[in-house]
């Protein structure tokens, strides 16, 4: 008879091994050049794009963080449901245009877009550096998530550090071998298991503890009515904060270079449109995570770390083998986004930073080799940071979110407004980034109840529009809108 720990671990490792094996088998028969490795040869159908996007967008934050927020902060967590749903609405209007431009100019990354649209080397370089810097805390957070999940699911028998090391090794291996195709195929296993885990956690735990979701909420409304509405357990996350955060995140989330890059894997613009129609439904899994977090408020109060809430309550409710399933799903939920983040960061570095600055003569194959080498370097760096990481990662990541969103004016004005100029966008981005970072560094977030990143974005947009109108381009814009005929490629 296996001990509970051994059972949970065996199931968890079997799931992670299955996911990784799928990643290795995903290689196509085609030669793995840069185009195959980064955007899968632009041939993904609707199903694969759906799985890849769900794989990327629902990270360890969705698994541990959302329930953790429901547990520790209460009502303000509702912003997550609203912004993710609206982010797909944004993607419906932006991604097909972007795809069109991407196909004509063979764009693979977000800096490629800035380079083609604005022909401004400094702007492209800046966007690229911001993207890579923003990725570091993001990957780090995923690895820390794996560590937490394995350590709780093994009843504390496995330390987080070795778990993070094994996960990193697997991620680096399948990304190195098969690029974005591996990530998409691992997502199949991950997305499916996450739905299973979310239903079990969201419906099963309240059922086992209170006899149903309704009974749980009635109990909570009776004992902690403030937890269920905004600002919940927080002092200043009220309605103004909710509105500004939803807007910032809904507009900004597709500005993350990895989500941006997913648009280029699709085989047609129509694939992306249809995807945007269906994707919001997957957000329902997050609503289930809320149920689990709220249950934990009643059943395991006074936890030191809210992110542990859902796992601790799952460990107390389910038998060990099912804890293993949840742990495995959780581990893959961290590994898939970490993989795509590392892949994107490696491509950004090799293609948009190293080659233009240091080796203009480098061939596409040279870039592909360098990008693969960077996967190993970035994996090792993130692992080192995650092991020695501090508790400030979450605040770093929140800053990174606010900073990434500042690309929004550059992308949207670039696609839909012919008079916007590179310098205008550049000044706008710098103004937006400075506003957001300074407000956050001065602990003024939220400022007058508004999200600091949203304040930055408003400043950014205003500056970009005014600067573009005051200093019009000397020559007419190279690429007024995505629908107008193509200008010669910048490559």
């Amino acid at each position, binding site marked *: 008879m296996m001990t509970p720990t051994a059972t949970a671990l065996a199931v968890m490792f079997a799931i992670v091994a299955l996911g990784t094996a799928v990643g290795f088998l995903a290689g196509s028969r085609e030669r793995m050049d840069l185009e195959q490795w980064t955007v899968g040869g632009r041939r993904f159908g609707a199903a694969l794009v759906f799985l890849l996007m769900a794989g990327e967008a629902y990270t360890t934050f969705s698994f541990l963080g959302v329930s953790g927020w429901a547990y520790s902060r209460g*009502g303000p967590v*509702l912003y997550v*449901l*609203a912004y993710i*749903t*609206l982010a*797909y*609405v944004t993607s*419906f209007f932006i991604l097909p245009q972007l795809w069109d431009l991407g196909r004509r100019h063979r764009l693979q990354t977000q800096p490629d877009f800035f380079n083609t649209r604005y022909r401004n080397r400094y702007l492209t370089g800046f966007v690229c550096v911001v993207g890579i810097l923003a990725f570091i805390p993001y990957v780090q957070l995923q690895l820390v998530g794996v560590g937490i999940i394995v350590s709780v699911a093994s009843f504390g028998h496995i330390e987080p550090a070795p778990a993070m090391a094994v996960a990193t090794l697997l991620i680096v291996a399948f990304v190195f071998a098969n690029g974005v195709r591996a990530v998409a195929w691992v997502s199949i296993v991950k997305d499916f298991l996450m739905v299973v885990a979310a239903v079990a956690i969201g419906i099963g735990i309240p059922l086992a503890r209170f006899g*149903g*979701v*309704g*009974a*749980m*909420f*009635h109990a909570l*409304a009776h004992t902690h*009515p403030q937890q*269920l*509405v*905004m600002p919940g357990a927080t002092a200043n996350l009220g*309605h103004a904060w*909710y*509105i500004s955060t*939803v*807007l910032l995140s809904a507009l900004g989330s597709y500005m993350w270079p990895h989500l941006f890059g997913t648009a280029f894997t699709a085989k047609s613009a*129509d694939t992306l*449109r*249809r995807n*945007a*129609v*269906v994707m*919001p*439904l997957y*957000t*329902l899994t997050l*609503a289930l995570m*809320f149920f689990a977090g709220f249950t934990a408020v009643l059943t395991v109060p006074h936890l030191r770390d809210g992110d542990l809430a859902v796992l601790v309550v799952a460990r107390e409710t389910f038998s060990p083998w099912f804890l293993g399933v949840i742990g495995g799903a959780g581990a893959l939920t961290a590994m898939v986004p970490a993989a795509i983040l590392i892949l994107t960061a490696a491509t950004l570095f090799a293609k948009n930073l190293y080659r233009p600055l240091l080796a203009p003569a480098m061939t596409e194959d040279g870039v592909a080799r360098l990008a693969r080498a960077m996967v190993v370097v970035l994996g090792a760096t993130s692992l080192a940071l995650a092991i020695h990481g501090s508790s400030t990662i979450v605040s770093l990541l929140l800053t990174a979110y606010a900073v990434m969103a500042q690309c929004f004016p550059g992308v949207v004005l670039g696609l839909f407004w012919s008079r916007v100029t590179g310098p205008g966008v550049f000044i706008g981005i710098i103004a937006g980034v400075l506003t957001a970072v300074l407000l956050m560094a001065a602990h003024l977030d939220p400022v007058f109840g508004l999200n600091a990143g949203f304040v930055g974005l408003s400043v950014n947009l205003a500056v970009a529009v005014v600067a573009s109108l005051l200093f019009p381009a000397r020559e007419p814009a190279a690429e007024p809108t995505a629908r107008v005929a193509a200008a010669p490629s910048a490559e």
Partner: protein
Amino acid sequence: MCFSVTLWDRIEPMFFGVPFNLCWLILWIVLTPCCMWGAYRIETAAERRGERG
């Protein structure tokens, strides 16, 4: 739509035992694809017309 938050951020009335604010958002998660499907139909119809013209 998110500007209406003050109107719906409340616990009562509960539906199926779920607080009203959560219900409201879940309702919109389900309604959004319906609206988007409409937008998709309009968009593709416009594109087809554009191709013919």
